[in-house]
């Protein structure tokens, strides 16, 4: 397995670092362009959600770890914010509303979870743990 780690300060601007981290991992794992796009988007939305809502904009630690295995590329995101399970978020009421009357937030989690092959949430050692997975498909010659 190939792996890498990144520690972010949720109080600073980190979107560029998250993108670089995930896209480098995706290239290493030879993900298709479309898979890399959605993995990056998922990591972007999850980390942004942690910073804005988990930590309430006050800053905190976000740890990213990534790996490439035979059949998958994964990104693990951990934080010390209060417990929050993104899989329990229900976007249906928001989507049903007239756009002109909708609330501003809530789209990020919908997009984050929408195109991943797998998403797992767990509360481990007092931390939130989100695991984002894209399956690797064999390319010609592999």
């Amino acid at each position, binding site marked *: 397995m190939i792996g890498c780690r990144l520690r972010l300060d949720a109080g600073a601007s980190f979107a560029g670092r998250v993108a670089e981290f995930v896209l480098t991992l995706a290239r290493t794992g030879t993900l298709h362009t479309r898979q890399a*796009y959605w993995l*990056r988007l998922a990591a972007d939305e999850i980390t942004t959600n942690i910073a804005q809502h988990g930590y309430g904009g006050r800053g905190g630690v976000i740890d990213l770890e990534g790996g490439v295995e035979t059949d998958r590329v994964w990104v693990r995101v951990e934080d010390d914010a209060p417990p929050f399970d993104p899989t329990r978020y229900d976007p249906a009421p928001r989507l049903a509303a007239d756009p002109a009357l909708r609330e501003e*937030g809530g*789209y990020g989690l919908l*997009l984050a979870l929408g195109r991943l092959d797998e998403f797992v949430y767990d509360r481990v050692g007092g931390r939130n743990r989100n695991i984002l997975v894209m399956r690797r498909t064999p390319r010609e010659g592999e």
Partner: protein
Amino acid sequence: MTLDAKMHIDEGTATIRLSGELDGRSAPRLNLLISDAVAAQVRRLVLLVSDVTYMSSAGIRCLLFAHQKLPRGAEIVLVGTRQEVAETIRMTGFDRTVVMQESVERESAEA
């Protein structure tokens, strides 16, 4: 990668040509232009997005902002949306309220 945005207003239509990545860092820039378009009392907003290579939920919130600030009945048109960006718009249900066009020569010539 940053977002490049240029706006042209003519006869009630604001046309904004966007290039780059529309995310949390760059969305405030687009919102400022939308605010300028609203101040100019346009009734049609055309976003030329064929060179937008990435859009997060921050971009979706820009569409929401435009919907809420423009007059009721104003038209929002997205031209040249790339596959993943179009999918993002569909997933959030905004395809029901914005017009998505693959290409329009008239729109491209305006910006």
